[in-house]
């Protein structure tokens, strides 16, 4: 069997789709943060797959490295926001986040 870039791209978009579906259908902020991680991971994976076709430079892998670093920062800040939101509302439900709405 031969695996080309098509299979990799299909897998990336399936993983991104699972993350997007989870982000749109769940209301637990913890799980939504995890689905964001799934989506970011699939993007890094796609960058690596494209870089594997054009092996002359390693720009895709360098970019994937930066995406991973920014995703780590995003997870830290997101969890801090989650904790301070939990302190106000005593819940992790995103539908209750309406302090700036009214």
């Amino acid at each position, binding site marked *: 069997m031969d695996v080309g870039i098509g299979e990799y791209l299909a897998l990336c978009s399936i993983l991104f*789709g699972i993350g*997007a579906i989870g982000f749109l259908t769940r209301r637990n902020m*913890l799980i939504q943060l995890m689905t964001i991680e799934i989506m970011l*991971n699939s993007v890094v994976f796609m960058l690596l797959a494209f870089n594997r076709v054009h092996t002359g430079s*390693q720009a895709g892998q360098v970019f994937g490295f930066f995406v991973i670093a920014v995703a780590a920062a995003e997870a830290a*800040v997101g969890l*801090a926001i989650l904790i301070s939101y939990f302190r106000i509302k005593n819940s992790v439900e995103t539908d209750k986040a309406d302090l700036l709405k009214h």
Partner: protein
Amino acid sequence: MSTAGFLLFLVSAVLAIVGAVITVASMRPLRAAMGLLLHVVALSALYLTLNAHLLAVLQLLIYAGAVVVLFVFVILLLGPAGEFAGDSEKLIGRVMGGCSAGAVLLLTAFSLSRHDAEFGPVGADYGTVEGLGNALYRGAMAPFEMVSITLLVAVVGAVAISRVRTAREKASDAADAEARKLANAGGSN
């Protein structure tokens, strides 16, 4: 690609999808975090099939070693309130949103799988610590340094957002408000 490589791709692809589905579908956050762990480890094996050795290691270190542990700590901190069962309210709109996202993504997956290019041979230093380190330090030195500033700002911001105000700060704020009220009353008289 050899048969072993194909098998590695197949097994880790299935595991990555299973892990992502567990993360999305599980009602308990701790189980979701374990699904994320499975997803991350399988994805790092997939990076290996793309000759991205350094990024596979980084994926394991940062995601399995740091991000998932951070999630588990927060789940333990929140306790039972982290699991809430209100996911069934207003379900129709959310399911419609999810289904449309799923349909778009399935179509994308199908059309992308038609796109085909062969994976050629790679150089000796492609994706290794040496090769990627050279590319990073020679070609992207300034962004690399900026990443450290980003991480520092993120850490300081996380501490600033999530810390509790101490009793002394609350008392001094209350004293300030009291003094301001007295001053206003004195000015109006």
